[in-house]
């Protein structure tokens, strides 16, 4: 059992959990993830490790409420326990001094980007960050990312913060103004990683993306996480989660992410219905 030691709402629909997992904390390298099972009847979901503290024996997970499991996780209070947290899984990011690195993050993808940006900076790179979201509140970890970046840029769809538009607009301008960076690391929704990769492909800027496919075991045993990278089948959980963005078949990934859409919606509706009932019950007892 893995205790929840701290929990904080960092934006609407975003939670930051600090979970006791000493062995994982000790071994974690940026880019790696854990498989989480909430309880006996739960499903196994991958969550990228946003931070680890080997001394305290904790890992930090940032969770966006998108489906039944992530919403349910949001109801877990401090002091409760997760049934299983397995990892650290996946191949760590290859951190080296390449010169200039642009870190592009969107949505929940900003969380796993943070330790990569921090290590890239520590390795002696110049780090520019571009973070985007629908609206200001949904651009998470702004201060934390700023602290590990030489310069940081923000974009929002509604213009409530930073520049109005998409991260790719900011990236294109950055490249135009400062020249080609040596590496782009993009983590966020599949569509965001696709457009970033399309942009950098033109200038042949090496681009790393971290894929978020559906997983069950996370150890290479089921193949449900498979993606097409440069015409080859790769398992995201063991061969990734990071790949060369220019080689990933994003269209296929996006389709495969929709494999269980009706079931996910059903589970979500049921959860919301039950949860609202419980909330109402709670209110009437109070």
């Amino acid at each position, binding site marked *: 059992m893995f205790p929840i030691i701290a929990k904080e709402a960092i934006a609407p629909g975003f939670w930051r959990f600090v979970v006791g997992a000493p*062995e994982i904390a000790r*071994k974690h390298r940026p880019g790696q993830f854990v498989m989480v099972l909430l309880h006996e009847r739960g499903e196994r979901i991958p969550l990228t490790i946003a931070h680890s503290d080997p001394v305290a024996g904790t890992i930090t997970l940032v969770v966006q409420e998108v489906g039944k499991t992530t919403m349910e996780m949001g109801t877990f209070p401090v002091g409760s326990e997760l049934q*299983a947290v397995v990892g650290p899984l996946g191949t760590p990011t290859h951190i080296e001094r390449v010169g200039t690195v642009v870190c592009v993050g969107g949505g929940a993808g900003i969380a796993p980007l943070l330790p990569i940006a921090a290590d890239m900076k520590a390795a002696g790179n110049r780090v520019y960050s571009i973070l985007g979201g629908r609206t200001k509140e949904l651009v998470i970890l702004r201060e934390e990312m700023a602290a590990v970046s030489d310069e940081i840029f923000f974009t929002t769809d509604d213009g409530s913060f930073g520049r109005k538009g998409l991260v790719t607009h900011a990236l294109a301008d950055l490249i135009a103004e400062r020249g080609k960076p040596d590496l782009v690391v993009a983590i966020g929704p599949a569509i965001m990683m696709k457009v970033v990769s399309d942009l950098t492909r033109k200038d042949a800027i090496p681009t790393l993306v971290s894929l978020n496919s559906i997983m*069950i075991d996370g150890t*290479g*045993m089921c193949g449900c996480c498979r993606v097409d990278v440069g015409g080859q089948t790769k398992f995201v959980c063991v061969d990734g989660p990071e790949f060369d963005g220019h080689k990933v078949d994003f269209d296929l990934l996006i*389709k495969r992410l929709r*494999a269980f859409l009706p079931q996910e919606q059903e589970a979500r509706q049921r959860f919301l219905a039950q949860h609202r009932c419980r909330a109402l019950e709670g209110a009437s007892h109070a």
Partner: protein
Amino acid sequence: MPEETVGLPELPKKERMKIPRHPMPEQKPEERVRNFSEVALGYTAELAMMEAQRCLQCEKPLCVQGCPVEIDIPAFVDLIRQGKFKEAVAKIKETNTLPAICGRVCPQEDQCEMVCVLTKKYTPVAIGRLERFVADLEREAGEIEMPHCAPPTGHKVAVIGSGPAGLTCAADLARLGHQVTIFEALHKTGGVLVYGIPEFRLPKAIVDYEVENLKRMGVEIRTGFVVGKTATVEELFWEYGYDAVFFGTGAGLPAFLGIPGEQFIGVLSANEFLTRVNLMRAYDFPNYDTPVRLGRRVAVVGAGNVAMDCLRCAKRLGAQEVICIYRRTRAESPARKEELERAEEEFIDFRWLSAPLEIYGNEEGFVTGMRIQRMELGEPDASGRRRPVPIPGSEYDIEVDTVIVAIGQSPNPLATRATPGLELNRHGCIVVDQQTMMSSIPGVFAGGDIVTGAATVILAMGAGKTAARGIHEWLGKLERGEVSKPTWPR
């Protein structure tokens, strides 16, 4: 367990041969395809004793030679005939730790029952059903005698993987007084027994029961621990303080077909399908959170045990048409005979001598159909089986919503790759000394599917036992300073 069951008399040999083999009560096909409860209901005490009465009690019992762990079959069968059920289980457990499991999943028709002297002219003694009967009786009575464990030796052994190889090795080591920890990557214990083989063939409660017994013997079980990731083998030795390590990591890597269209949604490996259904209980979605989607028509490629399990799970999940695609004939199907027969009773459409050529999908990326090639048997190949060859122009298309690929598994390299110096063969299997099961790294042992490639439960158990002896000897040498724990260059 009833102490005083009145046994049956010994019959003259001639008469024993006249008694036909007793069928085992089962759920009816129409009924069972609508539930996940166990298909076979097991012998009653009367049926078991009557079946046991058939055994000729051979002087030189061939059945024993056919058993990979050499159970004293005539002895336990005769004890059943006499109504001495408790003694019968004890007899089996001298060499087989998991009889309730083996009685259900061993391919008896290729082992003990194949060579039983009655097989030639009559039908073999139902050895597997008898084994299962006494093991169940003992478990249900809750009277399992805990094996006696030797005084603690102070040695710690890490067992990686909780399949039959790991469970057996752990049990034998615990009995020898060693302190054992099982490290299992998944969140449940049992390996293929829990994630692969479905509830209707092997109820999970039976596996859980065996695992509980192990715990009572002092074996520690750490689930959700991926060796090679959470800790390496080197760390198990030098930071966790283990004196020996056993690899029982199985053959969990799925093979795909390598034909066009395999990326469509709805093409899944048998491992993915069975894990969703058995381990994550997708058949009870949305009570359990993991979904599975099949559609109306499901094709399963392959005809081994894994394929049978997929076909039968798909049927139970409500697929209207379930089709088995296999490029050889029924005679070559490597599945356990009883399961193949049951699958045939369960309205599965078997297409023998058929090979998939291509999978079709729609705009949204979902599977819609499949192109099949008819085959015929040609010249025998290296394995002596007649090689299937395509019949030109015989291709045809079928409509399907799901394609499950059950054409084999190979070892998962996650742990072996993280263990430098470990010698592997070209299939990724660990190379071991057959006597001791020790690998190229002193103190690191292996057994089961990780050594043989995908095989059987009983062979994995046998390997686990042999390895336990090898590990015990090695620990003795370690104590006497004749060997030392392995080191890795920094």
